[in-house]
């Protein structure tokens, strides 16, 4: 329990007369760690006496306490309610985090994903009892095949990066099968970090390729690097500068001419869904983020789902399991033909995940797609691009637009407008927090200095965009006069600017009894 004076010293930002005894600030409530609220022996779940039995634990009975705290249900509900109140979310406001596609998450989808027929279904039940789930997976695959124009979908990947792994392994398997092992992957400098990381996981060397002044891949440089040992190009389209790779057909042609594969990172599919089919761009493999384009909620970091669309040349290498249509309905193939003891078959890259995929995300994504339909999905792409371009014109006067001209679903600015103000991209982002907005993506992509990447998505109203633009413009003007104000931001959040350097220097990654005692002492 802290006293006034301490409340004061620990919270100088608060003028004396608004210091509080508790440290709470009206509806902003402080909350200790679970471990600091332990009532030993207490429990928030009532379980019956275990029936009498003879233990079969083979002498491995646990001897020591685990160290978990005991709380009642009311305390736990209040704890997590208070924690949630320290978060910002799409439900609360505008969240223009570039490359993340933070769009509205319909509650219908949450409701349907919880139907017992989907949520309370075990992956190892007899298949005769899971036909509806197989139909769900099949239907989702049909929608995604139709939207991408590609012949095969691998649905098991758990997220975008996992999808990349799936696609790149399929490529490597195909090359190996072809007896033409290759060493290198070409990756634009603007690529998301998962791209090079994934390529490396497949044992490849990474060859960066530069952007041209228009923010696209430099076709000349690309061609120059397309040697016989290049396995594939990993390209993001629309790219992370929010631009469509307008020479993509030439790129695909060059890549294929060199005997390499064309992998496309489809995380930005929201910009073109229903208007462009990746298959028509010469792409051999592409992953989709259901948790972006198809609105499955991000949940503070996951779970996601990253299905991969494969060209006919790569389809035979798709991971297990597969669905086939048999006499008795649909069947799940869990073992590839000649796999040693169920291990990877010579064709399939094998199993990528414990079970059949992120079914809970499939339900949400399918409900989302069915709700929009062919017409609504096309409208999604159009409104996403319209909103981004509207912000581009509303903001380009005050911020420095990195690449002139039309953008797709997101617009990239850099920090030239902050030159000589003493304000950084980070400071600018933190000032937006006080204004009630989630900042745009900062310092990514790496191809421009102090990047500010803004993706509004299609689920924001014009009024929301206008308020955002007015605010950013006002802040930009203020950078000229009040650098100190920006350095001190944010001031109005439950915590002010957090020291990330200190955190990394001496990492404290878990609660420790001693530690907390110290703190209590302080």
């Amino acid at each position: 329990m802290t006293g006034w004076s301490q409340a004061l010293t620990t919270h100088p930002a608060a003028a004396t007369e608004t210091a509080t005894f508790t440290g709470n600030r009206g509806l902003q409530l402080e909350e200790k760690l679970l471990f600091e609220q332990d009532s030993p022996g207490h429990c928030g779940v009532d379980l019956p006496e275990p029936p009498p039995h003879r233990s079969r634990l083979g002498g491995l009975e646990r001897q020591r306490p685990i160290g978990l705290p005991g709380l009642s249900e009311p305390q736990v509900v209040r704890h997590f309610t208070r924690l949630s109140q320290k978060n910002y979310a799409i439900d609360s406001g505008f969240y223009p985090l570039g490359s993340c596609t933070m769009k509205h998450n319909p509650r219908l989808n949450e409701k349907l994903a919880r139907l017992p027929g989907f949520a309370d279904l075990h992956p190892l039940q007899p298949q005769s009892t899971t036909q509806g789930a197989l139909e769900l997976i099949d239907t989702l695959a049909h929608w995604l095949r139709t939207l991408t124009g590609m012949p095969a979908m691998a649905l098991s990947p758990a997220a975008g990066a996992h999808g990349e792994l799936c696609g790149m392994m399929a490529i490597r398997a195909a090359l190996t099968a072809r007896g033409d092992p290759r060493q290198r992957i070409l990756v634009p400098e603007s690529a998301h970090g998962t791209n090079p990381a994934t390529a490396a996981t497949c044992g490849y060397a990474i060859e960066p390729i530069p952007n041209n002044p228009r923010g696209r891949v430099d076709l000349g440089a690309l061609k120059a690097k397309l040697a016989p040992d290049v396995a594939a190009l990993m390209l993001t389209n629309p790219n992370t500068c929010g631009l469509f790779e307008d020479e993509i057909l030439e790129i695909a042609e060059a890549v294929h001419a060199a005997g390499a594969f064309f992998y496309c990172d489809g995380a930005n599919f929201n910009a073109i869904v229903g208007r462009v089919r990746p298959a028509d761009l010469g792409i051999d493999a592409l992953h989709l983020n259901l948790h972006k384009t198809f609105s499955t909620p991000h949940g503070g970091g996951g779970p996601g789902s990253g299905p991969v669309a494969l060209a006919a040349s790569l389809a035979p290498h798709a991971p297990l399991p597969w669905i086939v249509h048999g006499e008795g309905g649909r069947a799940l193939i869990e073992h590839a033909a000649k796999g040693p003891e169920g291990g990877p078959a010579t064709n399939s890259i094998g199993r990528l995940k414990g079970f059949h995929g992120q079914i809970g995300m499939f339900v949400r994504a399918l409900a989302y797609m069915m709700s929009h339909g062919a017409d609504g999905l096309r409208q999604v792409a159009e409104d996403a691009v319209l909103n981004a371009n509207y912000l581009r014109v509303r903001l380009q006067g005050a911020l420095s637009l990195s690449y002139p001209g039309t953008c797709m679903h997101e617009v990239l600015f850099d920090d030239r407008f902050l030159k000589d103000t003493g304000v950084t991209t980070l400071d600018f982002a933190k000032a937006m927090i006080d204004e009630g907005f989630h900042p745009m993506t900062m310092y990514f992509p790496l191809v421009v200095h102090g990047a500010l990447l803004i993706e509004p998505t299609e689920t924001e109203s014009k009024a929301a965009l206008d308020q955002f633009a007015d605010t950013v413009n006002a802040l930009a003007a203020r950078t000229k006069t009040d650098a100190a104000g920006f350095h001190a931001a944010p001031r109005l959040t439950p915590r002010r600017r957090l020291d990330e350097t200190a955190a990394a220097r001496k990492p404290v990654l878990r609660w420790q009894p001693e530690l907390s005692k110290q703190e209590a002492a302080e």
Partner: protein
Amino acid sequence: MRYLPLTPGDRRQMLAAIGVGSIDDLFSDVPKSARLDGLVDLPLAQGELAVERALSQMAAKNVAAGSAPFFIGGGVYRHHVPAAVDHLIQRGEFLTSYTPYQPELAQGTLQSLFEFQTQVALLTGMEVANASLYDGATACAEAVAMAHRVTRRGKAVLSGALHPHYREVCQTYAQFSGLQVEALKPTPGVADPIDLDNETACVVVQYPDFFGELRDCSALAARCHQAGALLVVVVTEIVSLGAVKSPGEMGADIVAGEGQALGNALNFGGPHLGLFAAREQHVRQMPGRLAGQTVDADGRRGWVLTLSAREQHIRRERATSNICTNSGLCALAFTIHLALLGEAGLTRLAELNHATACNLADRLETVPGVSVLNRSYFNEFTVRLPKPAAPIVDELAEFGVLGGVPLSRFYPGRDDLANLLLVAATETATEDDIEQFAHALAEVLR
């Protein structure tokens, strides 16, 4: 469209402000040949009522686990999740927020991840844990890759009693990484003959093992450490750690686990929750995100994502893993469920599971021709039937009983395992469920 706030009027105004005549002008960078003029060949938009009807009909074609006596495990366990858990994870502030890249707007997510990491470290008996991976199988593959990095050795030995899907995922991940994976032959009831050499990066064992057996791996840990290898312990039923010694206590260097059993539904196999814990000395070789404690500008305690120099968005091709999105919300559900249980509740829950499984085993052994293979187990064990298990399980389903998994589903090549059935029982199985199972089994066997 109910989800699209722009009106036709808004669109006109905005196009004018942008200075283009039509929406098509904004797509002019798309090569003509690749532009779709019309709609793709899919149904048109539908209202909630219609979508709900269609998907409810699909769901109705499945037999929900809760609607029948249910005894399936095999790496996914059906426990009762308190209603408060699902209520809290659905709060928009948790559900609809992104990875906490702006810590001042995400203290809720960050503090709960810090609590999650602490819970996982305590349960596994390890020093540090990460903020989750996709699932247990990928966590296991990441553990093997980490052992490779830590020891700079080229061989991983996988126990024959490791979950076959986990083994397959390790093989998939390793196939192009230059790491050699030696998978021992699955032999239920028999300990693995493990030999170590100076190329062995790690040995991977499961605890309780895939067939339900509980084996003390302290001795193996000692052997590994002598040989300079790491011991990776896999836990697929995390609730078991409420009853038995932790892997850390037995000397594990890395614990890779599946956390679905706490807070999360079966979900037909996903999303689930990858757990990953290790010794502090190896923290900089760990995959995945880490939440860490720090202070704010006023000196008050707060949380951030830390040690990201390990991660792909900073380290790119030299990252410890390519993982980005993980299983955040599943981790939150895990943390809330475990917060509700606490020390006393988890201990009781584990005891209840064990007791139920013991009684199930005893009851099944009263069925002529049925015998339990295990010497020890927690809430899952292997029974030998007088006939091939696969058709039996299908017949049981017709009796309305979901009675375990035939091992042949995992080892199609192995005729010697054809009669074996993997059976699990949790606190959700009633005495009546057990009776129905035993009766139905006797029926189909006669």
